[in-house]
């Protein structure tokens, strides 16, 4: 049976089901329910919950827990997610698995606690220093909060990488029916590389730091990093196609905005307009395979997202291979279905300015 759950609670429960037994974080709207939920739920399953003094401590406790092989997660939003970036870079350099949730709010600086999609660049382009990449999942429903949180833990271990769940205020706050899968048991001792006290394999002890120091020759390190990220880029692209086969114009949207776009596609089709949608599920790697498939057949892309200037639209343009790309950054209000249809009409009439 499906049960009605709030997005943040469902995400938190999914972490438990994935075998996550460590959470450290700090309150910030609109992600706080994750913290609240896990504060009671984790002790019930023998896990560790810590409300830290700051997001800095939160991400670094996750770093420590991940180093021991435990499935560990932290969550935040906007400003708090910014504070976690240094830690994410370190976790990347040490190649540790961890899941970091950003329930996006709107705006620059303090911004607004309502929903938004302004952290695309930060999540997708390596928000911290040094040029790392992380898998980024963008759930668009409460069910996907569950499914991709569980997947995130698996992928984090498969590639030994931090994985970001880029949710938003609407997906986090809304309630929908969800089906929860069976829980998994995780064995923190299954990897030999995790900190557990030295043994015969590591007579001098494990040295867990930036892998450039101990595990690679300087000449081998950069190729290793390139191989690592190309493997993720090649194998992990995920997306959903909605009526793209014969589409004349394709909307590109993720998360909460994609739900408005889904309505727009339906409405346009009802009026005989061949509109489709590509919904990236992974934002990194961006599903360029999807665009490469439709570049030959489609007349234009319209990137719809909830920020002031457009962010994802840059990636759409990067992979459009010359196909015209238009932008509808809806700012601090969620995209409007009628406005999408109006812009589509403008594109078809040739009166809309391209994004770049």
């Amino acid at each position, binding site marked *: 049976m499906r049960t009605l759950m709030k997005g943040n609670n469902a995400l938190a429960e999914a972490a438990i089901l994935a075998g996550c*037994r*460590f959470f*450290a974080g700090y309150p910030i709207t609109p992600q706080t329910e994750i913290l609240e939920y896990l504060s009671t739920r984790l002790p019930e399953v023998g896990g*560790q919950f*810590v409300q*830290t*003094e*700051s997001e*800095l*401590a939160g991400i*670094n*406790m*996750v*770093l*420590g*827990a991940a*180093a*021991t*092989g*435990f499935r*560990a997660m932290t969550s935040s939003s906007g400003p708090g997610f910014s504070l976690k970036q*240094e*830690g994410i870079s*370190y976790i990347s350099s040490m190649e540790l698995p961890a899941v970091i949730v950003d329930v996006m709010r709107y705006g620059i600086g303090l911004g607004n606690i309502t929903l938004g999609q302004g952290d695309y660049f930060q999540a997708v382009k390596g928000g911290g220093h040094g040029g790392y990449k992380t898998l980024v999942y963008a759930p668009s429903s409460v069910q996907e909060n569950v499914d991709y949180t569980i997947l995130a833990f698996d992928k984090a271990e498969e590639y030994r990488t931090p994985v970001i769940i880029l949710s938003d205020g609407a997906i986090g706050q809304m309630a929908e029916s969800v089906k929860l899968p069976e829980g998994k048991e995780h064995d*923190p001792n299954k990897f030999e590389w995790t*900190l*557990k*006290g*030295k*043994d015969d394999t*590591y*007579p*001098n*002890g*494990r*040295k*867990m*730091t*930036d892998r450039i*120091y*101990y595990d690679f020759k300087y000449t081998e390190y950069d190729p290793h990093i390139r191989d690592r990220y190309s493997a993720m880029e090649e194998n992990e692209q995920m997306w959903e196609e909605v009526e793209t086969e014969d589409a004349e114009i394709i909307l590109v949207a993720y998360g909460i905005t994609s739900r408005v776009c889904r309505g727009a596609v339906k409405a346009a089709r009802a009026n005989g307009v061949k509109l489709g949608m590509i919904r990236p599920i992974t934002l990194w790697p961006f599903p360029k395979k999807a665009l490469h498939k439709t570049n030959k057949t489609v007349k234009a892309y319209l990137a719809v997202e909830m920020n002031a200037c457009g962010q994802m639209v840059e990636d759409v343009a990067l992979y459009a291979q010359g196909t015209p790309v238009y932008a509808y950054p809806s700012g601090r209000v969620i995209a409007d279905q009628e406005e999408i249809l109006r812009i589509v009409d403008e594109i078809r009439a040739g009166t809309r300015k391209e994004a770049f």
Partner: protein
Amino acid sequence: MAAVKEREIPRSIYAANSFCPGCGHGLVLRLIAEVIDEMDIDRDTIGVLAVGCSCLTNRTLAIDLLQSPHGRASAAAAAIKRCRPEKLVLTYQGDGDAASIGIAETIYTAQRKEKITQIIVNNGVYGMTGGQMSPTTLVGQKTTTSVKGRDPEVSGMPLNLMEVLKSFEPAYMARGSIHDAPHIMKAKSYIKKAFAAQMAGEGYSCVEILSPCPTNWHMTPEESMRRIGEEVIQYYPLGEFAKGGDQ
């Protein structure tokens, strides 16, 4: 002529350190290694380093080690201890790491009574970056960012970590020094007591150790040791600050 005793290297030291000549870190690490050996816990100890000269520990101490971001060692260590409560978990940090950029983590590790041991080597400067003023630089002490000497009107008074942490009622807390042999032995006993408190599940423990940085103090090793004994311990009194200690 008395037989010269062959130099013994603790089992938990696996390679020569690369600290500057006269640096105190090598001595403190030796004390930690000796204690680990004596307690026979080298396979049950996990250390956390952060950033600064202290992180060179990675290349000398033969235990599992994690190097966290600057200042965050105690947060990472607390998480490790929560996941692996049966292990001895220690941090090895400098004063810049633990008392400046990581002061929040240090305070809240103590406040939450995380069952780890913080070992903080206080040499009053940022060593690795070339001798800048640190939170523990003494008044009047010249550094590359206080060239006329630390001015309390500009930079405030040096931070006394033991005073800051006392109110959180640690299981064990002490400040030692390594400026002469008796103090070195005393410092070692502090480390041992802190580890014992942790192993007994008593709570948070911390040992601060006053240590020389001849390179950035622009002194000889001998002058540096004398400075600690004559000047530094005046501002940073030694002793045990928690658990029936003498302060």
